[in-house]
């Protein structure tokens, strides 16, 4: 335990073993919860088998004999199951659970005492007894007689061979799917195709080939088994780049299912000629353009509604007005459907991004000599495609921070009595129309005192300023702030959390930090599912109503005229001993304030850090979720307006672009002072 270099494979073993057991448990639970628990998807059994197989391999290399022996016996059981030599029964399921539990105990023993001395003989003999009861071997199908490229049979593993036979035995249809991809994206593309296939069948094997342009592209042949027919498979998989062929026995007489196949065959011939374009890849900009058009249409619809109302007042037109209103309502409904549909198309799951983050974290942890267990939850959560790209960098930054500053070195962790292996948890979940992404580490937490000291050092705050914990954490987001003592390879190069926050605010997202010294830190990022939906504070100025994205609002307060002072030709108010510049929205947009009581008005504080400003408004009308729509070409150039939205009462209101308004007012102020 003293020699760190020597400990490395040992700790890596524990980390991987725990990871494997996690995967096994997850699959066992899926199996247990599935409707048909005694005939689970073959991928589930195979995943458990693979886990046990790997565990056996690495335990063998490390010389942990009990783990090796139990996983070896269990592997036999699972192999018999996946090869169809053993039927799954409740007894077998119970054995699987028990063995997993025992393996967990053994690995725990290794991590505590460095050995795996726990007696597991009873379990071993239970498994061996079960293995003795074998069903009769099913007659093998003649794979050689399949209309299949013989080269493919040469690369099938024994298990894949068995799956092919099993599919034939169950009278499933076999298809060969051929597709070409670019070398850069083939893994993503294939994963997509694989996840579609596992919805209706099974991928028996995935075979790469150099293809026609080996320097830039790669071709894959997938052999799949399914109960569905060719028409169905081509309809869900088709794409001009994908070719699908049904695999049958070469001799007609030996077809598994006679007769009904002819029909499918008929469909097969034309399908190979015409392009199978049931799915298409679309540039996201095209979808954006369509969404913008929908936005413009919504505004046009408002005009129609308005006209119909006026029309109703004119004698002799009321009937027409009613018809027009009805048509407008239908138009509205359909536009909403269209908008929702378009948004759905843009959604993609987070798993690719999470994979990238995991890989990066593993690499970084290796470089920094820390051993970190990375756990992922909710990677199936979907988010707008553009959004995923935009949050990649901020998330990488946060994960990097967690590896570099969060998780302590192994020695430190041992000294603190923590688990030797640090954990970083990446999770995502959908909450209403928002997605919450969390990055949690069980590292050292943020040293609030050091944050304050650094802020004083850098002149960001006065040495005597009093700060709550939350305000101190907020300092981390100040531009140019970094507490890291040494500039390391990993992070701490001065590009800090301010950039992260700025990027997230651009996406109408928020970021919060929860931290406990010595226990860990959690970054919580909340994002709207798409760039188009956001939470807004609805305010009134005169007759006009505006929506303010809530993520940039920090608080709102009521003031009277007496609270406003003028400093250097600029209106300000005092907010907790600090001066806050204010901007009268009525003045900015040339609106007459018609408030009944000019003595009472509201200030909405927006922005962050030294770019805080108060918007003066007449009334606060509450919070609401809004869908931002583009203003169209003519109005898109107006400063300070981000777009338009419609409130529940069908009134179209403008959404303020807070960043631009702050920028503008700071600019004006600077010019005034200079002048």
């Amino acid at each position, binding site marked *: 335990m003293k020699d760190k270099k020597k400990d490395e494979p040992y700790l890596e073993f524990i980390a991987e073993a725990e990871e494997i057991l996690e995967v096994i448990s997850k699959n066992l639970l899926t199996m247990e919860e599935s409707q048909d628990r005694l005939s689970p998807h073959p991928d589930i059994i195979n995943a458990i088998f693979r886990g046990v197989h790997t565990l056996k391999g690495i335990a063998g*290399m490390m010389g942990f004999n009990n783990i090796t022996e139990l996983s070896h016996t269990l592997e036999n059981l699972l192999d018999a199951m996946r090869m169809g030599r053993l039927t799954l029964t409740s007894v077998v399921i119970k054995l699987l659970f028990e063995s997993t539990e025992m393996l967990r105990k053994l690995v725990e023993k290794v991590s505590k005492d460095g050995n795996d001395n726990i007696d597991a003989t009873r379990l071993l003999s239970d498994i061996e007894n079960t293995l003795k009861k074998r069903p009769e071997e099913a007659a093998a199908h003649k794979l050689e007689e399949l209309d299949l490229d013989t080269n493919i049979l040469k690369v099938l593993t024994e298990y894949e061979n068995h799956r092919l036979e099993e599919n034939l035995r169950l009278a499933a249809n076999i298809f060969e799917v051929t597709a070409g991809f670019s070398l850069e994206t083939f*893994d993503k593309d294939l994963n997509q195709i694989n996840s579609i296939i596992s919805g209706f069948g099974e991928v028996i094997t995935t075979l*790469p080939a150099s293809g026609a342009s080996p320097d830039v592209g790669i071709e894959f042949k997938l052999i799949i088994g399914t109960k569905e027919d060719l028409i169905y498979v081509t309809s869900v998989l088709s794409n001009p780049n994908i070719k699908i062929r049904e695999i049958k026995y070469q001799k007609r007489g030996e077809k598994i299912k006679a007769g009904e196949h002819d029909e499918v065959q008929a469909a097969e011939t034309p399908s190979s000629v015409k392009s199978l374009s049931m799915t298409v890849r679309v540039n996201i900009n095209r979808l954006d353009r369509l969404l913008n058009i929908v936005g413009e249409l919504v505004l046009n619809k408002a005009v129609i509604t308005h006209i119909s109302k006026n029309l109703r007042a004119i004698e002799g037109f009321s009937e027409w007005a009613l018809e027009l209103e009805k048509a407008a309502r239908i138009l509205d409904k359909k536009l909403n459907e269209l908008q929702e549909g378009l948004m759905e198309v843009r959604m993609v799951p987070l798993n690719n991004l999470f994979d990238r983050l995991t890989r990066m974290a593993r690499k970084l942890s290796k470089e920094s000599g820390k051993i970190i267990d990375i756990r992922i939850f909710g990677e199936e959560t979907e988010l707008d495609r553009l959004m995923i790209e935009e949050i990649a960098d901020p998330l990488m930054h946060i994960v990097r921070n967690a590896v570099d500053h969060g998780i302590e070195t192994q020695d430190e962790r041992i000294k603190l009595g923590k688990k030797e292996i640090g954990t970083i948890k990446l999770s995502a979940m959908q909450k209403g129309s928002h997605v919450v992404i969390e990055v949690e580490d069980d590292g050292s937490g943020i040293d609030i005192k050091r944050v304050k000291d650094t802020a004083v050092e850098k002149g960001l705050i006065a040495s005597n300023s009093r700060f709550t914990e939350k305000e101190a954490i907020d300092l981390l987001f100040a531009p140019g702030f970094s507490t890291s003592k040494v500039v390391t390879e990993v992070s701490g190069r001065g590009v800090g959390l301010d950039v992260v926050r700025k990027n997230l605010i651009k996406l109408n997202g928020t970021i919060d930090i929860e931290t406990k010294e010595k226990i860990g830190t959690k970054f919580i990022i909340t994002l709207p599912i798409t760039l188009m939906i956001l939470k807004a504070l609805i305010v009134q100025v005169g007759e006009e109503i505006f929506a303010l994205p809530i993520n940039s609002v920090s608080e709102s307060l009521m003031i009277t005229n007496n609270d406003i002072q003028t400093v250097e030709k600029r209106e300000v108010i005092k907010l907790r001993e600090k001066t806050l510049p204010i901007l009268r929205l009525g003045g900015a947009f040339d609106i007459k304030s018609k408030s009944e009581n000019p003595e009472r008005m509201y200030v909405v504080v927006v922005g962050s850090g030294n770019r805080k400003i108060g918007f003066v408004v007449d009334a606060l009308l509450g919070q609401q979720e809004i869908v931002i729509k583009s203003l169209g070409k003519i109005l898109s150039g107006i400063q300070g307006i981000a777009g338009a939205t419609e409130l529940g009462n069908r009134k179209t209101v403008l959404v303020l672009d807070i960043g631009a308004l702050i920028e503008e007012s700071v600019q004006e102020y600077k010019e005034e002072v200079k002048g």
Partner: protein
Amino acid sequence: MSKKVLVIEDSSTMRSMVAAIIEEMGDFAVTEAGSGFEALKLLPTEKFDLIITDINMPDINGLEVVNFVKTHPNYKRIPLIIITTERSEEDRKKGIALGASEYITKPFKQDELQEVVKRVIG
């Protein structure tokens, strides 16, 4: 110039062990791939002198890696060693038939692997 070895293995423990064993031999630079897909992406980035691959992997199996390398115009000259288990004799035979130069059976000792590597690219 040191020889470049690509190690394809989904178990990180096994992968780093194999890498460490080979690096210990001296003049070898090891690149690690955690899956067949990753290997396919790494192949065009460097000129490898040897590929060592596991058979049982989640995305594409090791036999398919062997077949891909041995039929690819740019890579077919790279020798391969497959890592097998005592369970998969059939797979081992297939791997050799597809053009793998050697195999090694898990669990193996350090010098066993070094021996095999020496035999293949000495």
